[in-house]
């Protein structure tokens, strides 16, 4: 059982080793990286490659750790009791299973994705320490212990909005997805658009990395934005010659909306174009 990347996901050597270490040692893998570098997609691809079911738990600022285990639906029990429903006598009817419970009791050990763990409250990771370490938890209402039949492969992504507690980090493997270099990027594009013209990709990559180098950009375009942009370029039949056109009057790349996501960045580009034009005039 080894993950070697898939036909739709290019994994670098270091990423593969981190994933395989986490799978072999059955510990969670914490993945960080710039937005749009494929953190969440990684879990999908691992599940696909190992042919495991994927259970996704998307974290929001209001998510509580206990919600991942189970919730006791007190309100509907209260309502049922007033209506005299028979169900009310058994408390287990009102225990709603969380994602972790699902993952622990699944027939085949699944891939559990805890997405954007840093969105939640600062205490959130601490509340899950024991559960992720021993892969078991206790349900007070029914006095039963839920233990993982097959330990799930746990993938956790973080966008670095909050620092995670040391105790939590100690239990994880860690991988930082670095922004792909040109060669890796080329492979990623090949995987997604096998039919694309080589010259178009070359010119587009030139522009893309140039855009990323522009100082003062608020949001640097990332892999997912590049892929969107290439798709647009292909569907609009933009030729590599247009991209290669180094006319400073057209400094803003065609269909830039896919790359630059806020108006300040577009203004910045317009200003640069203006300066370039003035230099040419002089």
């Amino acid at each position: 059982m080894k993950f070697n990347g898939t036909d739709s996901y290019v994994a670098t050597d270091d990423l593969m080793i981190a994933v395989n270490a986490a799978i072999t040692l059955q510990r969670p893998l914490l993945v960080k990286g710039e937005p749009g570098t494929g953190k969440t997609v990684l879990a999908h691809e691992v599940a696909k490659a190992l042919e495991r079911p994927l259970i996704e738990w998307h974290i929001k600022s209001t998510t509580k750790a206990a919600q991942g285990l189970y919730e006791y639906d007190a309100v509907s029990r209260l309502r049922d009791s007033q209506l005299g429903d028979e169900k009310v006598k058994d408390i287990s009817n009102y225990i709603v299973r969380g994602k972790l419970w699902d993952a622990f009791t699944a027939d085949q050990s699944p891939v559990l994705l805890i997405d954007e763990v840093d969105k939640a409250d600062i205490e959130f990771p601490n509340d899950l320490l024991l559960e992720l370490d021993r892969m078991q938890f206790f349900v007070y209402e029914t006095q039963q212990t839920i233990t993982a039949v097959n330990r799930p492969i746990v993938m956790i992504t973080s966008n670095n909005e909050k620092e995670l507690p040391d105790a939590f980090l100690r239990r994880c493997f860690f991988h930082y997805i670095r922004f792909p270099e040109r060669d890796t990027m080329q492979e990623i594009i090949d995987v997604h658009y096998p039919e694309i013209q080589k010259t178009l990709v070359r010119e587009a990559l030139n522009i893309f990395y140039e855009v990323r180098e522009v100082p003062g950009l608020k949001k640097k375009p990332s892999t997912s934005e590049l892929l969107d942009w290439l798709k647009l370029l292909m569907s609009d039949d933009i030729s590599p010659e247009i991209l290669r056109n180094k006319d400073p009057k057209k400094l803003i790349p065609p269909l830039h909306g896919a790359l630059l996501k806020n108006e300040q960045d577009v203004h910045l580009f317009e200003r640069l174009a203006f300066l370039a034009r003035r230099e040419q005039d002089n």
Partner: protein
Amino acid sequence: MFFNLFFELKAAKVPVSLKEYLTLLEAMTLNVAEYNVESFYYLSRSCLVKDERNLDKFDRVFGSVFKGLEPPDNPDTAEIPEEWLRKLTELHLSEEEKAKIEALGGWEKIMEELKKRLEEQEKRHQGGSKWIGTGGTSPFGANGYNPEGVRIGQEKSRHRRAVKVWDKREYRNFDDSVVLGTRNIKIALRRLRQFARLGAPDELDLDGTIRSTAKNGGWIDIQMRPERRNTVKVLLLLDVGGSMDDHIRTMEELFSATRTEFKHLESYYFHNCMYEKVWKDNRRRHSEHISTSQLLNTYGPDWKLIFVGDATMSPYEIVYPGGSVEHWNEEAGQVWMERMLDHFKHACWLNPVPERHWEYTPSLQMLQQVMGHRMFGLTLDGLDKGMRSLGR
């Protein structure tokens, strides 16, 4: 052998614990990594480093532990064998480039020059066109553009098949001491969050509902409560102009980060030191300003006050009435500073000047006194300390 790595990491202040070390050993016995150095490097990195800010430190430690190199932090003490450099250039330079070296006076001359500069050079260096370091155009150093360049500590690593990946030190940017980006600033600012329930009740209060339902003899009595929101109030006073021009970029980043992070944020500008007036718009600073006493009346003591400035000026500007460089001030800057600090109990000063230079500026020392040592550097670490002091 691994012990060495573990203790060196500890010495380099990478937070590693025994648990992580045992995990690494376990992974090694389970054959997760193949028997080559690169896999071992990836595996140990994944086990031992849990924060991208420490990746660079890890690369440095790994390099020195497994190569027996001097730590690259003090290149002035490192002796680079001549043969090694010679071999390097032979590997990297084309015939044409070697001819250029000849044009410059030949290999011997370059080596002589290199030795001379190594002696002259005192600190680690980056950029520039003379000193040995990285990214420059000098003939010596790494990643250079000079065709007759001698690459130091960058053997082969320009290609993806590089043997020594850690030598690339690609994680340089994430080191703690680097100048802030807005994202990092926002994370540090989050320390200031204060949650409270204010406003319209629009959330079900389950505990309250159960309690009052029980009191109600079993009939449901729904209780609502307002949502939890960040209620911290921040008053930002920014020094502008003069010596602050060097720090404009850092200031802009800080400013834009605070804008989105706090709902209650007011910002005003001042020049060098606090006097009797501040202003909102720099273009109209001479026509539209508000008096500092009005500021004191408008914002209550529950507002947290953050000064941002380099505190670099003539000491007269702080101590004497009329000391301001721009106008005649009736009362000394210090008086106004103390008035502000009396009113706002939670205050701190963020200073973009690197902390190691502070002791050379008398005015900075004086303001540090006035602030009661609540002046912090405008780095991630300083911001963190500042926010902690405001939270107290």
